[in-house]
């Protein structure tokens, strides 16, 4: 689903953000991506979502080699990736329904299908009763869930989440991660970038750790020490 092969990203100005990074995320796999800020997490996500181009190396998304992608084809690749952001990236002047419906409208679904799929997606994140609300009427956690509903509404094979629990309290964070687990259970590949190490430690998922642009660990993190209390 996602395959990085010796990917290096060198920003203009000489800053080396990623060094020879290689990894593969198979279909239906779930993994965390972690590292200190500045370690290259954001760069890696930007490369996957085609906001940046690698300096060298190759990236494959859903079987497509990104180097061969032309400007006009970028939207079609992005439709295969559900993206979730820390700042939600919702359209504030549109209702929750319209926000979630956006990917479907773009792909040209009929109104009936859009209604059906949006309702199903909002059902999954338990926000069906907030369909007619505007994003500013919702709490941070609810806005995040709207973002998740939008990311999954057209059933992309990959879910990409950038600090999805960044602004949320531990209880809500866990709820969000449980949601991702649900999607993962139905075969969606999930990659979650986070620096919430406590969360990772308790989840026992494969974890990719970046340090100064290099992938230093790739595997299940065991016995990670955390000073944070448990939240249950």
């Amino acid at each position, binding site marked *: 689903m996602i395959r990085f092969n010796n990917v290096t990203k060198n920003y203009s100005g000489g800053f080396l953000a990623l060094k020879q990074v290689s990894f593969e995320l198979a279909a239906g796999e779930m993994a965390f991506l972690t590292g200190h800020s500045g370690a290259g997490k954001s760069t890696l996500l*930007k490369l996957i979502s085609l906001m940046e181009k690698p300096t060298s190396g190759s990236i494959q998304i859903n079987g*497509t080699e990104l180097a061969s992608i032309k400007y006009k084809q970028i*939207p079609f690749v992005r439709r295969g990736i559900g993206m979730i952001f820390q700042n939600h*990236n919702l359209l504030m002047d549109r209702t929750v329904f319209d926000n979630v419906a956006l990917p479907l409208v773009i*792909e040209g679904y009929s109104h009936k299908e859009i209604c059906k799929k949006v309702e199903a997606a909002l059902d999954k994140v338990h926000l069906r009763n907030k369909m007619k609300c505007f994003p500013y009427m919702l709490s941070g956690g609810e806005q995040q869930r709207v973002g998740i509903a939008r990311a999954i509404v057209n059933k992309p094979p990959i879910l990409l989440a950038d600090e999805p629990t960044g602004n949320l309290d531990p209880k809500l964070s866990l709820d969000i991660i449980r949601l991702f687990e649900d999607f993962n259970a139905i075969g969606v590949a999930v990659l979650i970038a986070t620096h919430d190490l406590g969360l990772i430690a308790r989840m026992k998922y494969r974890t990719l750790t970046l340090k100064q642009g290099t992938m230093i660990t790739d595997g299940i993190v065991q016995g990670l020490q955390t000073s944070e209390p448990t939240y249950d």
Partner: protein
Amino acid sequence: MTNESLAKSKKPSLFRRILALPIRHLQQAIGSLGDLWRTPFTSVMTIVVLGISLTLPATLHLFVKNAQSVTEQWDSASEITLFVKLSVNDKAAQNLVQRIGLYPEVEKVTYISATQALEEFKVLSGFGQALEYLDKNPLPATILVTPTKRASQVLAARELLVKLEQEREVEQGKLDLEWLTRLEAMAQLIEDIVLSVALLLCLSVVLIIGNTIRLAILNQKDAIAVMKLVGATDSFIQRPFLYSGVWYGVFGGIFASLAVFILAEYLSGAMNQLTTLYSSSFELQGLTFSELSLLILLAVLLGLSGSYMSVRRHIKAIEPTAD
């Protein structure tokens, strides 16, 4: 499997998408109308500027059109004026009129006797009473000769004039072709000025619309970035802006049509006063239905090209960022 076929495999069928396309266009057209409605001040300003910019050339066109219809009238009625020698008496002059009437090139002859001429002069000049102190009528009798259509062409009319001047009762003949050619040249000049002014104004309309749409795009920058992130193509994103341009054109065109109509109404009053002074019948022609539709169509085209220019430049430049 390429990205596009991958995308298509999950999508509704091609047929259904094509079927949905006009509906989507309609939705986006109405949606962009709603966007204009939500920013009434900007929209009205743009529409008024557009309307005024189009009113000017349209009004000038109206003038040129009317001037042409007037000069055409004059052209077909080119007259030859013959002044009869003062020594010739009324009876001899009448005789001359009859002879001229028999010319094959002549359509109509009108005789204005010296007394009639004086009466008319009294009325029109405003000297009135003062003229009564003259002991002798200084005006000659005049014969107005209207040539037939064929003889009213420049060369034929000249020949006819020469022929008429050879009549022994005639003092002098006048065929005023000079002023006609001058008038035509003047009309041509005005037409050229109108055309170049119109071109400049159309260019400014394109730029105004382009700038308005540019501001609208920059206002929506975040929303555009989000749409790009969830896989919207540029053509999907730019469509509402193109429709805004079309709407600006429609409303600006309607505004211009109304403005021209009102101006024509207002000016025709003053015009009528002027033409009655010249004792000619003249009716100001307004814009015809097809001219009005052409005006609105032009406005729409200008609006569309302005927004297209802007959309091409700016939508591609907006790229989503992760932060």
